[in-house]
């Protein structure tokens, strides 16, 4: 090779003599590398400082952090100039757990912890084995037992009293747990050689993806009683859950189909040559490779579902967003909805951000 190729690629700024304070050097390369860049940095800094300053004034300096129970007069005194964080300690039990019996609220709290533990274990690569599926079944059964009660001395709590964060997590997790196998079946159906099965799968996926989730939820809440024989009815939460599963199934099917397409033809042919049946071929050879290919987009789809469960607000199911919106109906606290929304946004953010970080790390690992 020529000598030119051996010169390592160094940004021009870094080749300048390394003199002076490292802080100044960093400022020079990153903020003031040219005159327009310098002007931009100054303008941005000014805007940022002003924004942060007024937010700090509202959110910290002038804020009310705690008030006596059920007394919002201190908050109303600073309305417009300071935040009323006192509404959070006042209402957090309702926002997090809805109308679940107050003394029994350790049960949904424990269920939330179980969910988090389940998610955490599912991200461990070392645990990606068949046992993980059993773990999911066991955890979901345990969570159902905690929420419903009725055995082991726990009092029975019917679904219409559930609310808040556990409902959001239930809708998202059960939607995923049932939507995933459904998605696999539909994805296989869409690639099947049998015309009837293929066209049914295409019809299902395109119909569901073509309409907004809101209209599916309306369908579940309004039209479901019409579809069923007279007198037969199931709970509203379960109906919304079914709508979310059907919705999730269609979107997951498309992601999984992408993975199936990425499996080389030779793998199918090899499985056929071994004389494996259709189901064994897919279970043992094709699907494990296909799903590995699409784990990052799958995680992104999960994030989207987690956020989309908030749409059940529109049909009046008490998920986290609905309890937040209900908490501020109380006339004494009505004017402080911004604070409650920021609090709830923080909860959603923590979950989604953790998932998106995880997806990013998976992508980075697969690129290595």
């Amino acid at each position, binding site marked *: 090779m020529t000598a030119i190729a051996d010169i390592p690629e160094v940004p021009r700024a870094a080749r300048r003599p390394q003199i002076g304070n490292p802080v100044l050097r960093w400022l020079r390369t990153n903020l003031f590398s040219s005159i327009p860049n310098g002007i931009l940095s100054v303008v941005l800094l000014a805007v940022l400082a002003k924004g942060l300053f007024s937010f700090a004034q509202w959110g910290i300096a002038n804020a009310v952090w705690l008030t006596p129970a059920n007394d919002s007069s201190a908050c109303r005194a600073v309305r417009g100039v300071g935040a009323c964080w006192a509404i959070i300690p006042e209402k957090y039990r309702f926002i997090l757990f809805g109308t679940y019996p107050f003394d029994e609220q350790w049960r949904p709290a424990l269920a939330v912890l179980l969910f988090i533990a389940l998610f955490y274990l599912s991200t461990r690569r070392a645990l990606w084995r068949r046992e993980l599926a059993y773990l999911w079944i066991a955890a979901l059964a345990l969570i159902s037992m905690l929420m419903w009660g009725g055995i082991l001395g726990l009092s029975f709590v019917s679904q219409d009293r559930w609310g808040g964060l556990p409902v959001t997590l239930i809708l998202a997790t059960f939607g995923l747990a049932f939507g995933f196998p459904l998605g696999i079946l539909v994805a296989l159906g869409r690639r099947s050689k049998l015309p009837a*099965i293929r066209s049914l799968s295409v019809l299902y996926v395109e119909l569901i993806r073509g309409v907004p989730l809101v209209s599916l939820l309306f369908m579940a809440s309004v039209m479901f009683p*019409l579809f069923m024989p007279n007198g037969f009815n199931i709970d509203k939460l379960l109906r919304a859950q079914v709508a979310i599963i059907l919705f999730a199934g269609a979107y997951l099917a498309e992601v999984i189909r992408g993975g199936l397409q990425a499996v080389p033809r030779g793998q199918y042919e090899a499985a056929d040559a071994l004389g494996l049946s259709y189901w064994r071929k897919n279970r043992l050879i094709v699907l494990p490779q296909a799903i590995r290919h699409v784990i990052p987009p799958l995680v992104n789809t999960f994030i989207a579902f987690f956020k989309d469960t908030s749409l059940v607000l529109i049909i009046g199911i008490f998920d986290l967003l609905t309890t937040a919106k209900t908490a501020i109906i109380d006339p004494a606290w009505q004017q402080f909805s911004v604070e409650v929304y920021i609090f709830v946004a923080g909860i959603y953010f923590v979950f989604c951000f953790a998932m998106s970080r995880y997806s990013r790390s998976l992508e980075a690992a697969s690129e290595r």
Partner: protein
Amino acid sequence: MTSDAPRPPPRRRFFGAFGRRELKGLFWQALVVGIAVAVIAFLWSNTVTNLSARRITTGFAFLGREAGMPISDSLLAYNPRDSYLWAFVVGIANTLRVAVIGIVLATILGTVIGISRLSANWLLSRLAAVYVETLRDIPLLLQLLFWYVLMQALPAARAAWRPIEGVFLSNRGLILPAIPIGTPQLCVLGAAVFGLVVFYVIRRRLIAQQMRDGKPRPSWPFGLGLLVVLPAAVSVLLGVSWTIEWPELRGFNFVGGLTLAPEYFALLIALVTYTSAFIAEIVRSGIQSVPRGQWDAANALGLRRSFMLRQIILPQALRVIVPPMTSQYLNLTKNSSLAVAIGYQDVVSIANTTLNQTGQAIEAIALIMAVFLTISLGISFFMNWYNSRIALVER
């Protein structure tokens, strides 16, 4: 074993030409189709019984009846005595109004933020990253409610904020100065669109000729004539007035100008900011997908930066950008149905009211599906056409 050893005769198959594989296939298909048909028949018969028990006649005859629902904010003229059909049309217009403007604004904002994330300025790229991460990880519905609450917390019309002269922001929404558009103004706009189309065709011709013989042929005289002189001539001939109407505060409300109702404005802001975060990521990854060598080669040729971006980088980045962008546009359109949560009357909200008033659940949902499938197919067709235009042409 030698090759001339006698092979065993093929086994006779029971069903002649059909092998076991085909039979199995037929069996599975019959099973799945059978189950699907049975489920649909079951649901259908229940529905028919239930509907007749509630004395609801199926069919779209109700569309001709008087709707009787108020629609506060609409592009098209509407009053509650109009038919359900017209109410639906008004709803579709409202959906399109927020979707089309939302798509345009989200694309602009998303592109700016996506490029900012790649900026050499550390502060700018960090700010863009924070914007993207925050907005992506909070449910859209929550953001929508948040913006709506902020809108309602704005001062009343009398104490409206005036960020710029003639623009008012109050709890009545955003009021902008506007030019009243009537038939004569539309004629001028029509002339401008016509001029644009003709100019585009002529310019393609000129470029094709230049490709053949290498002689540059300037297109700007045509541009001047078709885009400036032609509309101006039409405007002068028809005597069209272009006076700007400034909004004014009279009593408790504003007169004149263009009003964006708080519901519409909140929905638009929420959709645009949320979708722009996703578009920013698409634009960023699209630009990053262009190999470094392309930048270096363009630099080595001594091209100007704007020319380099326009002719070298962008065409390659667009190939990566367009397909995921299509699905973002579809998402924005579908997400506009969240309007129902804050009372902006889009098609889903109107279908929902219709459903509550008439009980025609199946028809209302069928109409929603038909509208969204049509819009989705329209966007897909347009984007697929655009995609095939910019796609890589290989031998």
